[in-house]
């Protein structure tokens, strides 16, 4: 009997957790044929689209032109097009899990995207740590090189003196 009760409780939990919105991240590649001026329009449209599906935007980044690591091909209405460049952008939002599927179906039909990826993620900012790490790694070699520069002229004088002494002998 207790087991049965537990099952009922678990079921109710599952139902409630379905309704609770989760945090997602939507990363996308936009077609490079879009002009730089029209990029902000596309960016605004994506934001509007996400919020139209009941998504609350947590963080996002403007699409930026990148060189792709490999050639991506996409077939649109029987025409195969190849891409070496694209605009990469991402947006982080909270949304109901069932609405996300609808969003995905909608995005599948959009010809502006080369590819996109919807992932579950965490609310915390995941990029801030990277910049901190980068700063640390860049500072160390600079400090070392300065020390070397200071050390070099002293060594030269000493060497000159040593050479003079050798010549005198």
């Amino acid at each position, binding site marked *: 009997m207790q087991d049965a009760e537990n099952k009922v409780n678990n079921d109710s939990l599952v139902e409630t957790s379905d309704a609770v919105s989760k945090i997602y991240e939507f*990363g996308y*590649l936009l077609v490079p044929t879009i002009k730089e001026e029209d990029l902000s329009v596309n960016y605004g449209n994506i934001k509007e689209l996400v919020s139209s599906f009941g998504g609350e935007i947590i963080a996002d980044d403007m699409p930026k032109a*990148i060189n*792709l*690591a*490999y050639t*991506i091909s996409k077939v649109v209405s029987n025409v195969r097009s190849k891409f070496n460049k*694209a605009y*990469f952008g*991402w947006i982080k939002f909270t949304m109901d899990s069932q609405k996300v599927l609808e969003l995905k179906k909608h995005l599948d039909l959009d010809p502006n995207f080369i*590819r996109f*990826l919807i*992932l579950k*993620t*965490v609310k*915390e900012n*995941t*990029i801030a*740590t*990277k910049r901190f*790490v*980068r700063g640390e790694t860049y500072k160390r070699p600079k400090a070392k090189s300065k020390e070397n520069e200071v050390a070099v002229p002293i060594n030269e004088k000493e060497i000159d003196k040593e050479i003079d002494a050798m010549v005198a002998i």
Partner: protein
Amino acid sequence: MKQDYFSANNIKYIDYKDVEILKKFINPNGKIVSHKRTGVTSKNQRALTSAIKHARFLGLLPFIVK
């Protein structure tokens, strides 16, 4: 790398967009470096692998380098 890179740098979530970090864990051919060589904990290695694969899908990292 004997110590876990991610716990040493206090990285809790391995992000597929952090290409600079992910590049440390692929070899010159573009393959993912094995768990034995990276010294990353099993849990982080699994997260790292999926992050690299997501980055590859979006063209941020190569599948192979010839």
